């Protein structure tokens, strides 16, 4: 029954996102909610907020799982609620731009369902080499911060077509594999609920992008992955799998020295006459992961996006190895 539920959740999420994405793209075009693809010479306008299809897919997927396996409803409801809270914040940001400080603050609230329903390990994370920690009092505060970190780190790592959706797909697969290695079967279901819609988003968002996920997509996917990691007790595995996103956010924040919106700072990447992308040499621009990758010379957007996905796969392998270390320790 467990495997049937997992397959059904994955298939329903995939199908709902696949069917709803073209409709959402049409609606966005009609309403004029379009974004400019700045890394192409002809600067095409692309429909925004494709992440709504991801949210619809995850919702349908979770509801299917709840119907088929009523015993897991508390766990799945906390996962879905966290995702939807972040999604609503993202949608508001897409329609009416939020301040660079208010947005991360609001995403702290996506942790509330997990804390209220108590779907986390009350003793704290299990670490490789060390084993079970005793962070009973501190851990709830860590969860609040962790949910904001994952959602905003994913949101910040969307520089090229297909980067966010591709790297998050890799992280989701890593979470599924790690859950299986550690025998945390409760963790497989939330990850599979994300995987179907993410694959659809990647198909539409990969180079050349037909749709942008918008903050509604990136914040909700980040929160969903954060919630899945906490529910599955894969916190440290997720930290390693999220390394490219964490590095990107950390480099940017540490060079600028504060929370910032992309519009407020000089562009870290510039488009050359030949259509390739090059790292800007402006000392005031943030040192993002994209700029670090392009420091060795210009790349085409498709190649740069490929490098991001390869980096995510390398982090994923290290994350799976971390899961193995946890298994050996426990």
């Amino acid at each position, binding site marked *: 029954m467990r495997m049937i539920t997992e397959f059904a959740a994955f298939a329903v999420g995939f199908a709902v996102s696949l069917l709803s994405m073209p409709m959402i793209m049409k609606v966005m075009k009609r309403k004029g909610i379009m974004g400019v693809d700045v890394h192409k010479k002809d600067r095409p306008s692309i429909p925004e907020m494709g992440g709504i299809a991801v949210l619809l897919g995850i919702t349908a997927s979770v509801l299917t799982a709840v119907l088929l396996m009523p015993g897991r409803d508390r766990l799945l409801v906390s996962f879905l609620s966290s995702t939807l809270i972040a999604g609503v914040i993202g949608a508001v940001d897409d329609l009416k731009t939020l301040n660079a400080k208010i947005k991360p603050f609001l995403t702290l609230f996506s942790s509330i369902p997990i804390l209220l329903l108590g779907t986390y390990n009350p003793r704290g994370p299990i*670490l*490789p*080499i*060390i084993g079970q920690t005793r962070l009973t009092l501190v851990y709830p505060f860590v969860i609040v911060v962790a949910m904001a970190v994952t959602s905003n780190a994913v949101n910040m790592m969307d520089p090229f077509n297909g980067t966010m959706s591709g790297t998050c797909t890799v992280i989701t697969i890593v979470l599924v594999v790690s859950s299986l290695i550690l025998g945390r079967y409760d963790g497989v279901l939330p990850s599979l609920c994300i995987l179907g819609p993410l694959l659809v988003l990647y198909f539409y968002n990969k180079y050349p992008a037909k749709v942008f996920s918008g903050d509604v997509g990136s914040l909700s996917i980040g929160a969903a992955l954060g919630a899945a990691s906490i529910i599955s007790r894969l916190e440290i595995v997720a*930290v*390693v799998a999220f*390394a*490219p996103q964490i*590095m990107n956010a*950390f*480099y940017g924040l*540490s*060079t600028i020295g504060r929370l910032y919106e992309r519009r407020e700072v000089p562009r870290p990447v510039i488009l050359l006459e030949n259509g390739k992308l090059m*790292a800007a*040499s402006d000392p005031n621009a943030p*040192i993002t*992961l994209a*700029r*670090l*990758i392009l*420091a*060795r*010379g210009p*790349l085409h957007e498709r*190649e740069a996006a*490929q*490098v991001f996905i*390869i*980096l995510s796969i*390398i*982090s994923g392998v*290290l994350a799976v190895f*971390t899961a193995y270390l946890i298994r050996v320790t426990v």
Partner: protein
Amino acid sequence: MIRRIIDFTLILLFMWACMLIGLWLINEVIVPLEIPGINNRVLTATLKVAASAGLALLWLWLWREIVKRTFWRTLRAYEQSVKMKERVSSEKEKQKGRNED
């Protein structure tokens, strides 16, 4: 493309290894630490938290410095190689012009 991936992988491995070593140090050295002359439990716990936070900050600072230096060194090396190529090609052009004369 391989060099770009190696750059990132080295930083990632450093960060990962430091994270494991740091967690081990906190768990095995800082947490069981008995500070002679201090009997107050709250003060001892505060000092342990401060030491752990200091270790984490040192890790973050090291990480930031490595990335900054790697980035600027790589970018400057690339810019120099471009200038060198331009100089070589302009000299070749000049040489060609002289030969045609």
